[in-house]
């Protein structure tokens, strides 16, 4: 049981940046962004290839984040090309823009990595370095503690940003695009910035996961979006959405709960590790359908 909790916390916090990124696009920007599956691998691949070439792991992680942000910018630019004339609530161009970027990223990621798998077996992770620095042996729980500190820092930065003049405009963009445009905001620019932030966060998860598991793999992004959505929805349902500050916390906690559920699922005898994606899809389906089913039950 303690093992499951430790894994849940560790994985949940590693993936909390992905969940924040998915929350940012789906909820704040009202932009269901499918770039995620590709930008996660881009973050992991860029970080891994730089580390194996002797670049400091901190710098490599940062470059990975910037690469992910660039992927978000590309999706935003494609969206501008495709959306002309369609209404603000037409999700078609948004979905296609993300699909195109993710598809292109598959090839780009292979170019970046040079092969489909980049091992990091003898490289120290960011956390090992931090552990050395403060002379702490990085056990699973001390890793969790380190991740928690980083996650809270990221959350505080997002809290601050969302309440700046620009951040408020970004929140309003997802809420009522016509209105914020009629207040003189260049919605294209704000949306691209939002997509960059979101995919930068996703790439951060990619970079950290690569360091923690010891390799970057071309297939590691598959289903990332659905997994991120799982964290978002579980967080919102379990911990509530009182305010934007609170909901950021909710989805991060949701990420942990989600990973604990996955860890529990994998302990069941007849479930194989390769069933993970099926399990993921079912978990997200249950979380998505719960409000609908509950309201039907209440009505009848």
């Amino acid at each position, binding site marked *: 049981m303690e093992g499951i909790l430790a894994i849940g916390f560790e994985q949940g916090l590693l993936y909390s940046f992905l969940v924040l990124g998915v929350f940012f696009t789906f909820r704040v920007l009202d932009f269901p962004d499918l770039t995620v599956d590709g930008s996660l691998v881009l973050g992991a691949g860029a970080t891994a290839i730089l580390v194996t070439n002797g670049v400091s792991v901190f710098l490599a992680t940062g470059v990975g984040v910037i690469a992910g942000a660039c992927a978000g910018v590309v999706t935003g630019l494609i969206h501008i090309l495709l959306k002309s004339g369609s209404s603000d609530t037409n999700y078609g161009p948004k979905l296609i823009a993300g699909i195109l970027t993710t598809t292109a990223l598959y090839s780009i990621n292979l170019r970046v990595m040079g092969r489909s798998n980049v091992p990091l077996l003898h490289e120290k992770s960011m956390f090992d370095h931090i552990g050395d620095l403060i002379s702490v042996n990085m056990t699973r729980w001390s890793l969790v503690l380190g991740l928690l500190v980083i996650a809270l820092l990221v959350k505080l930065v997002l809290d601050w*940003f969302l*309440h*700046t*003049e*620009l*951040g*408020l*405009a970004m*929140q*309003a963009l997802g*809420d*009522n695009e*016509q*209105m*914020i*445009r*009629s*207040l*003189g*905001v*260049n*919605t294209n620019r704000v949306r691209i910035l939002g997509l960059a932030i979101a995919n930068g966060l996703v790439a951060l998860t990619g970079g950290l996961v690569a360091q923690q598991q010891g390799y970057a793999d071309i297939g590691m992004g598959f289903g990332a979006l659905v997994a991120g959505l799982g964290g978002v929805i579980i967080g919102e349902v379990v911990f509530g959405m009182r305010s934007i500050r609170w909901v950021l916390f909710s989805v991060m906690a949701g990420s942990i709960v989600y990973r604990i559920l996955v860890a529990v699922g994998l302990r069941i005898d007849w479930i194989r590790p390769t069933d993970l994606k099926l399990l993921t899809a079912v978990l997200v389906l249950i979380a998505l359908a719960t409000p609908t089913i509950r309201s039907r039950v209440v009505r009848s």
Partner: protein
Amino acid sequence: MTGTGGLRVEGAVKVFFTGTPNEVRALDGLSLDMRPGDFVTIIGSNGAGKSTLLNAVAGTFPIDHGEIWLDDKELTQRPEHLRAQSIGRVFQDPRAGTAPSLSIEENLCLAMLRGKRRGLARGLSASRRASVKGQLSQLGMGLEERPRSAVAKLSGGQRQALSLLMATITRPQLLLLDEHTAALDPKVAATIMDLTTQIVTRERLTTLMVTHNMELALSRGNRLMMMHAGRVILDVAGADKSSLTVPELVRKFHEVAGETLASDRMLLE
């Protein structure tokens, strides 16, 4: 004749669904000239092109031909968000003018930054918060008591009052009102209309108000325009307008348009 906000539209043409059987000439060479400080009411039957005119001025879509000028600035090619620096707008749907999940004060803060660069400074600074409170109390709706409530919790009338405040808080050169009281119940509509007159008069805003309601069009503003088939077919101002009555307006419509009134709705109101 002092102040800013002279709007000039020259030969504006807007065709929708070009080249299809559904082709509509929503604006058919429309021209109008508003002096700074004019409060123009626009009436016309359904499909006359009233909303298209407001959208064309605001820049929701580009026009096919013609020019649009605000004072000495040509707007014709400008994107919507740049025109919005000098144009405030209230829509018919009370939900259209506000962001529902943000608070009342956050919405107003967004509006105070109309046309300004939005940076990384705190949105709701202490000074903005105080100013928001003062502005809200002028609405007389008690919103200043709960500036942190989400806008989604407000009634249609409250949301429209807030939209009106948001559209006018930076004193834009031009205010566009697109049947902004049509979706409200009569009592609330009257309140919002009084508030509108109050703000427009106090701030001396150049205003273009579209309405379906002839009484309203006659009782408000200093100038009335009637639209038909994408053009302005009647333009009365000053004393001519104040002496005009609803039956006369209907008669004039027949005279100028030379056909029966297209919309019963216009007669009924």
